């Protein structure tokens, strides 16, 4: 081993400090991207801030610790961490809520495109199904090193079954549907499997005016996701936000298109069986 590599090692390793953040050699403070943390004082050197101007960023009125803008993770470092200096991560919740939002968005677009009446059950079903996928994305990769199709298909089947069950349950409760439709459940499950498998094989798409240069739809959606992750979503222009939303939908086009066909087919079947009771 050369002397230079030993020196490089020492510098490299000594830079990584509390929760893996780099330490500024000059000030002795740890760099948390949004601000500096003083391990000697046990607090940040500047108050927390958000891109959108707020009197007390990230404040929660039921948690007095959140009002202290100099504290690290609400003064509870044993169970929380702060990856970027803004706030502690709740990635499971973000995954579930993000998935639910995508599910509802897709459902609304699908119903709008097919001219269907949007029911509370459809929204609830799409939200729960989306939450399963979103939460699963954060936690359960379909595969590690091999084909993802079969595994993604199974997750799609579960999403289809759960979405349909919730949709039928809520629609029964609200009077939009009467009784349980087994065929609808079966169709949703099978088509959920098909769309899940398709979604795992979505090609990189480029659409002029939305994606640009070498960027594809995934890249556009990723850019927006990164901004949200870093807490600077409010600095996005409307155009960028729209591009991100469109990019996400296009990247998920296989699911949307097949889902539209599935719902149309299931609705037709349901109506045929229930004498027009289904919407």
């Amino acid at each position: 081993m050369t002397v230079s590599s030993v020196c490089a090692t020492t510098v490299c390793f000594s830079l990584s400090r509390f929760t893996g953040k780099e330490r500024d050699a000059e000030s002795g403070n740890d760099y948390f991207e949004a601000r500096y943390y003083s391990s000697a004082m046990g607090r940040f050197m500047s108050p927390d801030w958000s891109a959108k101007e707020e009197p007390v960023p990230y404040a929660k009125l039921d948690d007095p610790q959140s009002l202290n803008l100099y504290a690290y993770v609400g003064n509870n470092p044993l169970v929380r961490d702060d990856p970027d200096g803004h706030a502690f991560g709740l990635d499971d919740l973000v995954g579930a809520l993000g998935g639910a939002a995508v599910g509802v968005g897709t459902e609304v677009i699908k119903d709008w495109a097919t001219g269907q009446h949007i029911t509370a059950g459809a929204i609830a079903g799409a939200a729960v199904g989306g939450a399963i996928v979103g939460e699963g994305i954060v936690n359960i990769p379909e595969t590690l090193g091999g084909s993802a199709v079969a595994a993604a298909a199974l997750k799609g089947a579960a999403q289809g079954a759960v979405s349909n069950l919730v949709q039928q349950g809520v629609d029964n409760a609200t009077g939009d549907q009467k009784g349980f439709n087994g065929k609808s459940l079966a169709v949703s499950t099978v088509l959920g499997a098909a769309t899940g498998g398709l979604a795992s094989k979505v090609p990189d798409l480029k659409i002029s005016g939305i994606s640009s240069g070498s960027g594809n739809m995934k890249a556009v959606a990723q850019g927006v996701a990164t901004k949200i992750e870093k807490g600077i979503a409010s600095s996005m222009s409307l155009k960028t936000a729209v591009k991100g939303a469109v990019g996400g939908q296009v990247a998920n086009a296989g699911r949307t298109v097949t889902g539209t066909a599935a719902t149309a087919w299931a609705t037709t079947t349901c109506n045929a069986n229930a004498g027009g009771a289904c919407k």
Partner: protein
Amino acid sequence: MTAKQNLVQLRRTIRPYVGQIVILVAVTVFAVYESLASSDWGFMWAPAVFLPLYAIYFLYFGMKYRVLWNKGSVVMRARGGAERRIQFDEIASVKKEVSSAGDVLAQSRPFSRIAVYPNRDPDGFVDISLRHFQLEDVEELLAAIRKSRPDLCVPSTLMNDASGKARSRV
């Protein structure tokens, strides 16, 4: 004793499965309620048949994903691919990563991970999920890599208290 026999497996956590199980249980409770309210037991189809199959599947898959190591190598075993083994002396880099949008859509890698890249094949990486395995064990593995390869910049996963004892985060 062979090197294979010396392999230590990273201990698992239940964290990746909690959210899914909570959602599935909630849906089951809803289905039972709806069945009782409407006297239509068709609502029990999904909880009785599909959801247990799904739960069994993702638990089975989770059990197939394992990371093992010894003093000279790290090994990943997972569903859908051959075993990947990287000797410490052939590591090109060790990075703490979060999935890109492409990874998320393809669902091909753990969302939050320590990735060990070999210098021979960039696609022959080993992913150490920060959700599937106990972080104390992951940190122990990283310490072994640091010790073996002091020329590498190896990230940390854990917070340390004043005495230097590792504590896991949530």
